[in-house]
């Protein structure tokens, strides 16, 4: 064994964050995901508007518009109220989600024509969200504890240093065997996710661009482009009008507020 074989791992160790000395790839993957989550916690609450442009293989487009309100919950997943504006036939429909760090989320759907609040099964996480290329789980299952991790490598893309990790959904109802994630080292922002289906074939790629900074340390991508490699369909999700710390409380996330949503 020559000295170079000793040097390379030693050099790599020096590049790792402090305390990452004797980490396995699994430990390191979890540590990076935990750090990314830590950096995005403490936002309190925010609202934003979302527009989705759905495009099929022939290039035909249709649009979805929704408004979203998010409340951070201490020691649990976020509470999210989603109000649908487009297409017009679902206008006024609203979805209340209590996401949880562990176990299934709780979801209630408000149907304005019937004035009915329906508790719905949260089992459909692999299903498409509003006919788009985003599955429910792509949007809601963002808690660290919902996956196990493995650090793969570092990569430099477009002048940015990135961590590349793999994560494996713990929920057997997930539509994926694994996801490969690129996070930039500067702010631990997601830059790209490759989704592998249940047969472990590459299904979709999500690319995050147009990041904006809110407050000191909260970053939101204003453009998320999801491409389905197997069907040729794509969905561009555009986010705008982020407003942080608007003073939302639990009361804005109950069945009464769901029925009042317009």
């Amino acid at each position, binding site marked *: 064994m020559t000295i170079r074989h000793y040097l390379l791992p030693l050099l790599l160790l020096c590049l790792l964050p402090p305390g990452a000395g004797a980490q396995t790839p699994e430990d390191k993957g979890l540590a990076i995901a935990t750090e990314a989550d830590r950096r995005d916690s403490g936002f309190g609450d925010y609202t934003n508007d979302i527009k989705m442009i759905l495009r099929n293989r022939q290039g035909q487009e249709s649009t979805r518009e929704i408004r979203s309100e998010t409340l951070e919950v201490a020691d649990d997943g976020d509470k999210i109220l989603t109000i649908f504006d487009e297409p*017009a036939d679902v206008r006024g429909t609203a979805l209340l989600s209590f996401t949880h760090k562990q176990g299934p989320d709780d979801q209630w759907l408000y149907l304005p024509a019937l004035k009915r609040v329906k508790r719905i099964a949260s089992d459909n996480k692999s299903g*498409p969200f509003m006919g788009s290329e985003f599955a429910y789980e792509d949007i809601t299952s963002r808690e660290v504890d919902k996956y196990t991790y493995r650090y793969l490598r570092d990569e430099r893309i477009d002048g940015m240093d990135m961590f590349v990790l793999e994560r494996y959904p713990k929920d057997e109802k997930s539509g994926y065997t694994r996801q490969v994630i690129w996070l930039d080292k500067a702010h631990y922002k997601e830059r790209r996710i490759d989704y592998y289906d249940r047969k472990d074939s590459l299904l979709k790629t999500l690319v995050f661009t147009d990041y904006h900074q809110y407050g000191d340390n909260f970053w939101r991508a204003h453009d998320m482009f999801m491409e389905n490699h197997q069907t040729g369909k794509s969905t561009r999700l555009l986010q705008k009008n982020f407003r942080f710390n608007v003073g939302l*409380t639990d009361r804005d996330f109950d069945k009464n507020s769901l029925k009042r949503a317009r």
Partner: protein
Amino acid sequence: MHGRLCIMTCLFVATAARAGEWRGYAAGELLGFLEDPMQPAQHDGYAALAFEPEYFHEWNNRHDLFTFKPYLLADTHDSRRTHVDLRELSWIHAARDWETNVGISKVFWGVTEAAHLVDVINQTDRVVDEDGEDKLGQPMAKLSLIRDWGVLDLFVLPGFRERTFPGRAGRPRFGIPVSDDARYESGARDHHIDFAARWSNSIGAFDIGIAHFTGTSREPRFIALPGAIGGTTVSEITPYYEIINQTSLDLQATSGGWLWKLEAVTRSGQGERFDSMAGGYEYTFVGVNDSAVDVGMITEYLYDSRGDDIDPATVLASRPFALSPFQNDLVLGTRITLNDVASSELLFSVIFDLEGGGQSFNLEASRRLGNAWKLSLEARGLANIPSDDVFASLADDTRLRIELARYF
């Protein structure tokens, strides 16, 4: 001091309130029947136009909401189906742990699919559709207390709305026409003030509601008045609205792909006290064969202790009788959701009368066309109805309804 600061913050950080907006839909509908009509005044086909605009205005950081929602329906043949209703004209004010709703509004209670037993606040607008899901606007003053132990809704309901029934030319309808000159038990008639209270809460996997209603029954019994009786035949039946007391429970347990549902009601005031219940489950297979398609299987059992037999002696003596379709019935259904861009979905169900032996078929399907149009298809019919069944006069009303709606 801290409390005051919080209030100030809440006042000054307005979330995006939506001021003065219109939305709604206009729809054209065609209704066709496979069989010849049983009544001479009825037709083979009907057309209708519906219009339901909604104006709303939010202010005070979305803590106040005004809604105005009229509804208009015009039918080619049935003059009683042609009607205008004020579905909503209400002001909602939301505070931190309470909420009020004053005006004309609509409230839904319940969990099951085939029957809506506990849903008693609003009157059914029966001429719009036969599924009992269209409701007339109800005048109300409602106070909701929103606390850690759940939500307590208290209702004062001044002003009663009579159920709508098809006219002589309407189809489907009972063989005997329903009079539009209703009778009441109370001398106050439709000015009787009704009250209701409901406690509801979500506890883990359970969503539970317990309610009590005291006032004019939304579901009438019927009377054949002496003037409408000729020998053993009846030319017209009259709705009879009595004062009832009804206590109900609605419960849903949600776990994985399972929804377990129960509605149970006990009611006094219409002859002997009786009980009714609807219960069952819906299980959804998500992403069948690795596609985006969800398939739900629905099973519900419907029970009513009144039974569905009508004693001719009661009718001919001008005593009230009930028309309750579900006394011992089994519902089997499937819900298919394509999860495609057009939001295509289909619900098919069969209700089996376990005592009389007849079946009722229901198919509802819809998909969006473009971004603002929606096409709906509905097929309903009865099969194997015994000739002595209460609903035998509806046996030849197999029908197909097509609706094209433009949303704005």
